[in-house]
Structure formats: C-alpha cells, structure tokens
C-alpha cells in the first residue's frame, strides 16, 4: 500500500448521552450503575397508552452544543419515528430527528499531533452537517438459558453529531473526537465518559486516489466506543480498502462491526440487507418552536472554546504549549489556573508549570488513580490548595524569599494541610537567609579553608564553573537557607 497514492475520507457520526436529570421523553431519571430495569416507568417501557413528552433540558443542551460549535439553530425542530424491530427497543421504533434537526452546520477546531510532544501541531476546522436528538435503546444480553433485556438506558437522551466528510486520517478523527469531548464537557452538555458508553461513534470510511474529487464507495463501521478504537478501526479499514482496490476488487457499500479485542473489522450487513426504517413524522410530538430568547439565553452559557483558550495562554500569558494543552482539557482546571494567575499575573508560566506538573501529579497520586491514568482527568474537588496560595508560592520564589528547593517542600506541605505558603515558611523557619553581613562572614570562613584553594585558583584562572564548588559548603553552613542569588553575588565580590 502506498499512502502517497491513496487518500482516506472519513465522516463521523458521534452519539453522545446528554447530561440531563431525566430521560428525553419520560420523567424517569437515568445514571450509571443501577440494578437492571430500575430506571424505567410506563413511558420508558412503552406500555400501551403512554406518550412521549419532550424534555426541555435535553433540547436546551442540544441547542447549547449548537451554539458552542457555531451552528445554525433553526426556528423549529421535529421528531420522526425510525421503525425497526429489536428486543432492546421498547416501542420497536426510535424517536429521532430526520428532517428537522435541532442544529444545522457548525464547525469544530481540531489540533493535529505536532512533530514532537512539545511542539504544537497544525490546527484545522472540521465542518458539521447537523446534530439531532434521539433516544437511546436498552441493552440485550444473552446467557446460556436465554436472553435478558435491561431498559435503564432506554430513553436516555442522545445527541447525534454528524460531521461532513472532512477528516483525512485516523489521527484527524482522533483529534476531532478529543476536541468534541473538550467542547461537550466544558459546556456542560455531556460527560462523555466512554467507559460508561456515554460517547459512541460510527465511522464512514472511503478511499480515493489522491487528486480525485469524487468520493469512493464507503463502508460504515458502527458502535465504536473509544477514541483509540476509532483510530485503530480507521487504520484497519483504510488498509483493507486499499488492499481491495489494489487487488482489482470493488469496495462494497456495507455496514461493519469492529472487534476491539482482535483489532479486526467484520461485515454486519450489506446494502441489500439494509433496513427500511419507514421514517415518518411522530404524531405524538408536535413541531417544537425554538424562540430566539431561548437561543440568546443559552448563548450566554457558551464558554471560551478550548483552542481559543490555548492560544490565549500561549500568546498572552506566555504559558508553554504543553502546559497550556493540559490546562485547556478541563475547564475547572483552567479556571483554577486563571484565578491563581489573577493573584500573581507576572508569572503565569510558573503557575502553569506548578499546576500541570506538581499539582496534577499529587492529586493523581492521592486519588489512587492508576499509574499512567489521564492526569488531566483528575478531580480538583479534593484539592486543599487554594489558587491564591499557589500564586503566593510562585511569588515567594520569584522574589527570592525562598529557594526553588524550599518551594518544593512548601508545596508538599500546602497540599497536605491546605495552609498558605506564607504561614508554612514562617512556621518552619524556611525564609532564605539574605543577611549580607552574616553571609559575608561565612564566605570568608569558607574561602579561608585550604580544601577549597584549588577551586578558587581554577575560578580565578577563568573557569566559571569552579565557583559552584564553593557554594555547597556555604549552603551547608546556613542549613540551606541562604539566598543562592545573594551567595553568588557576595562570593564573586569576595573572590575579586
């Protein structure tokens, strides 16, 4: 296979469970980890005579998503019935929005991987076709003695986000999903916990010769439930299609499944077996009008987009790219960081480094998270350090009141006790010794010691580094409290 020769074209359909209290058409609540069939009511079970009632909260979350991605919010949306028989589908039709979705268009900014971890990659916009609301179905499981159905998931509000075929690699698809997750979670639209099945994805993949403008025949792989699964599946599917075409065979339009365990795709059904869903407008739910007042109210809830925030941190606050990228992944972390920066605006980079390296590491360790767990997902809820205190710590270091070494010690204490750094420095007597007279006296004693005569000679002969050998004994005599900057100044003066 030759990548230079073939171009892959990918469109994603992302199904996201919305963060709502109640189900999309019923008052039953939903959540993870309940006993089977506990989160049901007559409407969820589709008992005879029950009717759906649209949950306004779900519609508003969907509109908010639309505003986050700059989509058009049409003046009205409507529901259709998608008819198919399956035991996990309580009514044997699914309520969805076929012709009048809640949002139209919009785009998602993505960041491609850079040349290395510390280097920012290219940014690109992926267009969305639309996003529509629908209801989730239950879960069917098979055991030796029969089949069991759990309807807890049935009726959970789903937003299906449909991209244009703008993605050109598995990495772009992964970047798209990463960006989408950041936008959805930061706006409070969805939690996107993939381990709980809150984000699932269908991937439409086709290939064509580079330079060709016509799209190739696509396959659709259903129900991918992790970003790595999407990436692996696209790599696999691209290779498969290239193999087929290079062997002179045609690509068949088909629906496929993905086995994450063995990393292979398989055919679910071909075009001839495609379902006829017999869509028609749901007569139980009147067309829903969306007022401009509602849109304006929701517009106020749209947060700064993750990559706009990243750019601001890098350009306005001089935060390094890697730290900025960690900060933007979680809005409460970014907000925490910004509160700290407000208390000590002159060194946002120092604050960022402390947050991203020390704070997240400690939080991760103390939360018992497994090694290698995504550090950006650590909760700040248990954090005892206040942002202003962290800022004060950086300030104390910047002003030379404590050394970097001391700062580490203070940070550990802050993390454990929640005390302010000023308090800790005082109570532990950690303040740097900046008493010039006392230091000059110690320096005289040290340089008078014959054991350092060689280093002094070397320094005087022009070896700059030789001076460091003198600093150790000075530090030792002050129990590490000496201000290193001051030591350096005074020592040079003493050595002439």
């Amino acid at each position, binding site marked *: 296979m030759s990548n230079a020769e073939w171009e892959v074209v990918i469109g994603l359909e992302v199904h996201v469970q919305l963060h709502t209290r109640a189900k999309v058409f019923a008052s039953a609540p939903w959540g993870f980890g309940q006993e089977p069939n506990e989160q049901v009511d*007559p409407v969820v*079970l*589709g*008992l*005879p*005579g*029950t*009717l*759906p*009632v*649209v949950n306004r909260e779900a519609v508003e979350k969907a509109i908010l998503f639309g505003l986050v991605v700059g989509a058009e919010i049409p003046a009205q949306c409507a529901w259709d*019935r998608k*008819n198919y*028989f399956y*035991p996990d589908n*309580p*009514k*044997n*039709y699914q309520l969805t929005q076929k012709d009048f979705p809640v949002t139209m268009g919009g785009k998602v900014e993505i960041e491609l991987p850079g040349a290395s971890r510390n280097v920012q990659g290219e940014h690109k916009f992926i267009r969305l076709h639309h996003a529509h609301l629908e209801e989730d179905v239950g879960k*069917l499981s098979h055991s030796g003695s029969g*089949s069991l*159905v759990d309807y807890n998931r049935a009726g959970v509000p789903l937003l299906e986000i449909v991209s244009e075929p703008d993605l050109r690699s598995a990495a772009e698809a992964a970047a798209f999903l990463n960006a989408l997750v950041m936008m959805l979670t930061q706006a409070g639209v969805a939690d996107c916990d993939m381990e709980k099945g809150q984000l699932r994805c269908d991937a439409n993949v086709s290939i064509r010769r580079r330079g060709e403008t016509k799209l190739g025949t696509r396959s659709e792989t259903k129900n991918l439930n992790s970003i790595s699964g999407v990436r692996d599946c696209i790599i696999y599917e691209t290779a498969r299609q290239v193999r087929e075409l290079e062997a002179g065979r045609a690509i068949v339009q088909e629906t496929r499944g993905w086995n994450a365990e063995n990393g292979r795709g398989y055919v679910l059904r071909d075009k001839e077996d495609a379902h*006829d869903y*017999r*869509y*028609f407008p749901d*007569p*139980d*739910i*009147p067309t829903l009008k969306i007022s401009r007042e509602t849109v304006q109210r929701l517009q106020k809830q749209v947060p700064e987009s993750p990559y706009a925030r990243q750019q601001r941190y890098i350009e306005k606050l001089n935060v390094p790219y890697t730290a900025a990228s960690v900060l933007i992944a979680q809005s409460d972390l970014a907000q925490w960081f910004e509160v700290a920066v407000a208390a000590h605006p002159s060194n946002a980079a120092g604050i960022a480094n402390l947050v991203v390296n020390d704070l997240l590491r400690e939080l991760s360790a103390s939360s018992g998270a497994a090694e290698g767990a995504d550090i950006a997902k650590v909760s700040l809820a248990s954090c005892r350090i206040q942002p202003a205190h962290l800022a004060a710590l950086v300030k104390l270091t910047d002003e030379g009141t404590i050394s970097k070494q001391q700062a580490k010690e203070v940070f550990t204490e802050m993390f454990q006790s929640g005390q302010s750094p000023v308090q800790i420095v005082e109570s532990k007597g950690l303040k740097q010794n900046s008493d010039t007279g006392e230091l000059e006296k110690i320096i005289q004693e040290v340089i008078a010691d014959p054991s350092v005569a060689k280093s002094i000679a070397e320094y005087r002969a022009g070896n700059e580094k030789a001076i460091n050998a003198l600093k150790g004994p000075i530090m030792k005599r002050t129990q590490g409290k000496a201000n290193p900057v001051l030591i350096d100044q005074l020592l040079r003066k003493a050595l002439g």
Partner: protein
Amino acid sequence: MAQELYQLSATEISQRLAKGELTSRALVEALMKRYHALNKKVGAFTHLDEADVLAQADASDARRKAGKTLGPLDGIPVGIKDNIAVKGQPLTCSSKMLAPLVSPYDAHVIESLRAAGAILYGRLNMDEFAMGSSTENSAVQKTFNPWDLARIPGGSSGGSAAALSAGLVPLALGSDTGGSIRQPASHCGIIGLKPTYGLISRYGLVAFASSLDQIGPMARTIDDCVLLLNALASPDARDMTCFNKNHRQQLPEVAAKSLRIGVPKGVLGKGVGAEVAAATQAAIDFYKSQGCTIIEVDLPSSDLAVPTYYVVATAEASSNLARYDGVRYGHRSANAKTPIEMMTNSRSEGFGPEVKRRILLGTFVLSAGYADAYYVRALRARSKIRAEHLAALEKVDMLLTPTVPTPAFKAGEKISDPLQLYLEDIFTIPANLAGLPALSVPCGKSGHLPVGFHLVGAPLSENKLLAAARLFEAAHGFANQLPTL
C-alpha cells in the same frame, strides 16, 4: 309506571342522589342485576369487577353522607372502553395480544373521573385495537345491537354503545379514530361525541392512529353527554397534543335564527339508504322550521377522505402496534428459540386478521419506494380536506350529514368484505382527518333500527354542536330511548 333505575339518565340519577332519594349502592346493585340478566345476550362488557364497583359506590355514598361529594358525577357509573387504561384492571383492547395485561397506571381521563367521584364500571368490548366498524373484530366475544340482536352494534366502540342502549350503564367512554364513537352511537340510538383533536388527553388511550384518535363521551341524552365531557376535558402535560387550557363547556342557549347549517352538496344521494336520507332530511327541515339558515356547501375533496384515512391511519397503526412483541408484556409465543423468533411468532399468534391487514397495509404505504406515492400524498390530501372544511366552517356554524349511510347490518354480513365495511365511515372520517368536533344525534328509525344525524363544527365548537343537538332533542322523543330486551 315507575321508571326502573336502569332507565334513568345520568342527569336524573345525579339529581336523585343529590336529593337523597337514591344511593349509589342501590343504583349499581340494580345495574349489576341487569348486567347478569342481559350481558350474555348483548355482549357489551368483557369484564366487571363487582366487588370493586360496590366498594366505589359505598365510598361515594360515604362522601355524600359526610357532605364531601365531589360533584355531579359522584356515584354515577361510567363504562370504560377496553382501550383506556385503568390501574389494576385488564387493558386488552379486545385482543389476544394483550389478554394477560393488567394496567399499572390510570389514563388521564380515568384520573379525572376518579377525581369527579365517578364509578369506573367495567370494561367494554370493542373491535380489536379499535380497528373495525362492527365490533366483530373483537377476539373476546361478539356484541349485538340491543335494537336487534341479530345485528351488529357498530364499532369500534360497539360495547360502549350497546351497553348504553341496553340500559346496562348510564354513561360510557369511547374512542374515535374514524367514526368509532359516532357510528355505533348512530346504530344504537344514542349520543356520541368525538371532541376536537387535543381537547381530551390521550394519555392512557392505547394508540391506534395517534393523529386521529380522540376519547369521547357516549350517553343517552345531550345533558348527560355534557356532564361527562366536562369531566374529561382538562389540560394534561403528559400529552403534548392536548390543549393546555381548560375548555369546559357551558352550553349557550342558541338562538336558532342565528344558526347557519351547511349541508354538503349531494350528501343524501348515492349510497345513502332511503330511510336514512329521509330521517336526515327531516332533521334539516326541523332546523329550517326553527329559523336556521340552511346553506349548501361544496367539499370537493370529500371523496378522498376514505382512501386518505386508510393510508394515514394504517401507517401510524403499523408503527404504534410494533411495540406488541411479547418481550415486555402481553402474549408471548411458547414456540420460539431466539428473541427475534419469539417476537415474530408472538405477533403472528396474538393479532387477529383485520389488525394484521392494517399493519401490512401501513407498513407498505411507509416503505421505501412507496411512501411518496401513498403516505406523503395522503398527508397532502389530508391538508386539503382540512382546509376545505375550515373554509366551509367560516361560512356556516356546522355541517349536517347522516352519521352512517345505512342502518346496522346483520352480524357476519360484511365480515368478508372489508372494503364495503370501510364505507361505513364515509361521513365520519373527515372530522378525524381535520381534527374537528363531531356529534351523532338520534333522529329516527329505519324500520326498527335507529338512525343518527351528524354535526361537524369548527375546532372547539363543541358547545355550539351540543346546543344545536339539544334544540333537536327537546323537540323530539329520541333521547334516552331504550329497546325492550
């Protein structure tokens, strides 16, 4: 001759209860006695929990004694069509498919009736899933017309109409998708109202065709009909198609001179029985004699109504009835190895032939390649029919036609000819397609069989229709007539 309790109208019962001349217990005991004597013959009720009825009656009497009566319906029995959910009672839609089902919840109208103190009195037979015009499609039992037990009572609310005209119950609930309240009302000589779409919550009404279905009151007098209607029409957030304002009816005194009644061109012509035409003409002449203006109206798309209806209604039904698969409730096939086989076999075994016919038809008209030719065109025709009716109803207060072209036919006569049977609804269907209120009022006989005329009004003009009907009722002897059984 002293009137028997079963002959009393609900309004008369209400007055006697209020005066302390009658207890609810005495009333229901008399009705249950009649039930035991006649229900086998008429076949109206499919279920009656007598202990529960007595307990409800006693509770009502106790309320009255304590001065805490809940209103004019308190203590009065209301028969319930078997497609309206009552907590703890069977909800079978006269289908084998739902034979084992007991409803775990109350329909909105049932909550309303309970709040009004009405006695929920038994389950009434119907065509399976409300699909039919003779109640012969019931998988449970046959229902016969009390005026002639060799004949059908009409349908699908045949049990409700037969129970009223047999004196088994003073009030009943029906549901109407294409005429299922009005056609049996006409055949059994009682009043049947299909309200404006959205006036009464459908929450708890087993759906046949959601955009057409309405629950409505059935009674033997106009006053009784109003009494029941006012208990049913209230806002309900659980049905998004239900009006969210209260539309209780206060019947105005209609000045006959101000009424403009439209009669569609050629309505008493082809296909309408001579005696039906004569009785309808007599009703028209009556209104004319009272000073009403009779205006001929043109509804050119009326011919499209029946085919449009059978596309829209079956399309919705094919989807609405998909949920009956034996997985969660209802009939489950014992002969299946896989879940899909179980669903398939449960449906094949559970549904009767007419229901299957309509599911197949509805599935066909929605399927890829055919939806545009059938379903989409039907929606266009429906809009046209609605627009024509609304335009006509700007010029007149109501339209008057026969309710059904011919009187009740003999049991078994049309069972093998569904197309002929579908024409029973030719006058009633447009009101469902257009969402308009419509009323059937007894207006005479064809031989020994009752005949009704049909009034259709603009949305939410129930009060006007009922007032006009009361004008007719007051001048004639058709109200609260019971055949000798």
